[in-house]
């Protein structure tokens, strides 16, 4: 006979404010099979957990229902408590009285009644639970880091320094990401490249790190501890092992007018190129889309001038497959280009720039060697306008969120401008100044007070060009909503940060979830900010949400910590919530008739054929078998099996049907 204990939690007042917890406990006491039913203020507290442990021991419980918050929150807590009292953890279930009841309904009879129904449902389920035992799987102690920006670099170094192997995949010819493009960093104004490049070099030289640049992740199969990643190494057309990085080829390449990605289109590069002087690896690649030889079949100048004879025009793309135990996604972000903004001229005014373009102008390694000059005529702008929230926080533009980094970098830009153009006038149009962070508010104040940057609270409705000037029409809401018109020489738009193109596709490749803006979703917004919903895949940096450098680094280190914890054991235990094909006594052996129509329905190729043989080795029957290492427990096969020969542990036919029956019982 079942001996079920029910533990109703008040969650302070989170549940008890709308649900009469004592009534729920009383009602549950009357359910068949329930031998113990109490309510308590905080079931998850130590005394609360002790109540569960004691009840299991004293009343010899065969199942436990904790009626409290979402199982996505505290299921591990309560299962652990049960386990400590000697009850198999999978004989503990949770009724979600908080997220699914008390928080979403008004106080009243109906709400308490629903709570009782939810408890009844879980009591009926837990009566049918079976003790389950974790599945042990080996762990491959190599991590895959996707993306070589500052987040990826930090994660890779931390994992590698923890003694584990790392494979880093970077799409561009060099690692470094957006941070390598920045001039100075807020709030210290130290040089971005000066602090980044040593890290880049460390990645390249680290014995535990294998670096694949100019490469993309194209497939990921498997599961935590046992992934198989497929990487496409795009042909660089240069033999990296021979190339000395002398860069003679890049000086001789006849294609010299290709807009440089690194310089955000403000400078030019050649077809065989190194994206920037401090690139890692510092070896050129041929951009096939622009190379004269690949386009016309003639040229090969680079091949002629290469002293090491390292050019390989016939080099193919290479697909490598690697076994990894964990993945860190650190693919970063991108920004809207000026063409996104109709009211700011659809990108047709050369002196209307994005924030990243301004970074390149301000950078000593940039196209103007750090002098702020107009792309149109090379003149030093006397008046400059910065516009924050260009696209961000603007539902009409489809971006409701705050891009978070712009307030700070705009203050930095304005400061850098004032430091370089002493007599210049700078204006910042803003909605709010969001400067939360260590020394951040002080930094913005410095821009306003010391560097005399004019902050105007209001939006800019239009920018147009007239006689070589950019007319910026806006409003100053702090000056009686006065219309403001500024004749500027340059305008910098703090355009919204957005997910990388292809982020959605990558998420689908990796089976991780993503939000409506294609940023990858963390497993819990507060408590699991570096994990994804897919075990073994972690997030670092701006691919999850816009964040600045210190936050990206912190999250990357967090992700690396998680990976190192995972790698600290050679075996991993997995929840046994997987599908199982039944087995029975001879002569049937299983009710499975071996039609194998379940095979194509399985997303993990986890269904195998098992031959049942007699003693002489003759095959009597071929039936399906679920490989417990591959099965992820989706249960698609279970719903598909006509003879109901497959069941899924934790969500068995008996359990779910009992839940449905219980929820509709006696009204």
């Amino acid at each position, binding site marked *: 006979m079942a001996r079920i204990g029910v533990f109703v939690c008040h969650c302070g007042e989170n549940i008890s404010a709308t649900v009469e917890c004592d009534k729920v406990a009383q009602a549950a006491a009357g359910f068949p099979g329930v031998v113990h039913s109490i309510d308590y203020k905080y079931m998850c507290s130590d005394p609360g957990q002790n109540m569960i442990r004691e009840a299991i021991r004293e009343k010899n419980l065969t199942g436990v229902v904790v009626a409290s918050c*979402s*199982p*996505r*929150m505290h299921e591990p807590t309560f299962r652990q408590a049960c386990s400590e009292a000697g009850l198999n953890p999978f004989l503990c279930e949770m009724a*979600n009285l*908080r*997220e*699914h*009841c008390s*928080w*979403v*309904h*008004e106080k009243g009879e*109906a*709400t308490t*009644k*629903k709570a009782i*129904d*939810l408890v009844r*449902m879980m009591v009926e389920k837990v009566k049918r639970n079976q003790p389950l035992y974790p599945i042990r799987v080996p762990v491959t102690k190599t991590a895959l880091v996707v993306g070589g920006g500052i987040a990826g670099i930090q994660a890779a170094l931390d994992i590698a320094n923890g003694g584990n192997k790392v494979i880093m995949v970077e799409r561009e010819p060099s690692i470094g990401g957006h941070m390598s493009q920045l001039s100075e960093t807020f709030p210290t104004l130290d040089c971005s490249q000066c602090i980044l490049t040593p890290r880049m070099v460390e990645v390249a030289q680290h014995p535990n790190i294998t670096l694949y640049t100019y490469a993309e992740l194209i497939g990921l199969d498997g599961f935590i501890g046992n992934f198989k990643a497929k990487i496409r190494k795009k042909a660089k057309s240069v033999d990296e092992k021979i190339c000395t990085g002398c860069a003679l080829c890049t000086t001789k390449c006849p294609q010299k007018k290709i807009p440089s990605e690194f310089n955000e289109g403000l400078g030019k590069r050649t077809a065989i190129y190194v994206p920037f002087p401090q690139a890692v690896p510092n070896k050129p690649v041929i951009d096939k889309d622009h190379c004269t030889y690949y386009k016309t079949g003639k040229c090969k100048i680079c091949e002629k001038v290469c002293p090491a004879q390292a050019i390989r025009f016939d080099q193919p793309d290479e697909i490598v497959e690697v076994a990894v135990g964990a993945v860190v996604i650190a693919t970063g972000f991108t920004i809207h280009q000026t063409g996104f903004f109709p009211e700011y001229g659809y990108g047709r005014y050369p002196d209307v720039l994005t924030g990243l373009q301004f970074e390149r102008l301000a950078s000593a390694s940039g196209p103007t060697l750090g002098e702020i000059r107009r792309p149109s005529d090379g003149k030093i702008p006397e008046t400059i306008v910065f516009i924050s929230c260009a696209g961000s926080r603007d539902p009409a533009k489809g971006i409701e969120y705050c891009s978070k980094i712009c307030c700070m970098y705009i203050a930095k830009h304005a400061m850098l401008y004032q430091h370089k153009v002493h007599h210049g006038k700078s204006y910042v149009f803003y909605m709010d100044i969001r400067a939360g962070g260590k020394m951040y508010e002080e930094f913005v104040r410095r821009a306003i007070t010391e560097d005399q940057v004019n902050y105007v609270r209001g939006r800019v409705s239009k920018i147009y060009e007239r006689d070589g000037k950019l007319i910026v029409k806006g409003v100053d809401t702090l000056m009686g909503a006065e219309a403001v018109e500024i004749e500027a020489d340059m305008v910098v738009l703090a355009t919204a940060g957005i997910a990388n193109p292809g982020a*959605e596709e990558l998420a*689908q490749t990796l*089976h991780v*979830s*993503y*939000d*409506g803006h294609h940023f990858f*979703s963390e497993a819990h917004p507060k408590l699991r900010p570096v994990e994804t*919903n*897919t075990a073994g895949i972690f997030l670092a940096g701006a691919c999850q949400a816009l964040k600045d450098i210190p936050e990206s680094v912190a999250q990357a280190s967090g992700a690396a910590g998680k990976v190192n914890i995972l790698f600290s054991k050679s075996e991993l235990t997995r929840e046994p*919530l997987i599908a199982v094909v039944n087995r029975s006594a001879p002569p049937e052996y299983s009710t499975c008739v071996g039609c194998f129509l379940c095979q194509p*329905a399985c*997303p*993990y190729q986890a269904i195998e054929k098992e031959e049942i043989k007699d003693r002489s080795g003759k095959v009597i029957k071929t039936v399906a078998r679920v490989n417990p290492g591959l099965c*992820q*427990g*989706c*249960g*698609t096969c*279970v*719903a*598909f099996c006509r003879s109901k020969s497959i069941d*899924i542990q*934790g*969500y068995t*036919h008996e359990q*779910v*049907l009992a*839940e*449905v*029956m219980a*929820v*509709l019982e006696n*009204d």
Partner: protein
Amino acid sequence: MENKIFEPKIVAFVCNWCTYAGADLTGTSRIKYAPNVKIVRFPCTGRIDFMLLLKAFGEGADGIIVSGCHPNDCHYTSGNFHARRRWISFRSLLDFLGIDTGRITFSWVSAAEGAKWAALVNDTVSRIKELGPYTDYEKVARYYEEEVNHE
């Protein structure tokens, strides 16, 4: 009892990763909705057996919600695609049998769509309220006996 307002009984079959989490978010966001709906958790919409829907109606459910991850967002890659095919065919079969498919709401609700979950529940509840209690299906358990008694 006769003058009591009809409060429909609705069972929701949802997947753990998207809609269950989405409904959690509804809670975390304190968005209110009608208490008529009770959620049964499944690992994936792919796990939801069509028989369960029949059992729910047979047991007196007035309405059913089936919800999971949006296409391409399935935690298990394709469980929801399989489920979608299953629902396309099951739904047309039910309709052909004269079973009101208007009592079943099929939906995709992601883990980020707490507000959508609340709206979905409220819409379903008000639609089922308009339709009234669903006794046809439940009653056929007794249909033959009634026929016999009638004669």
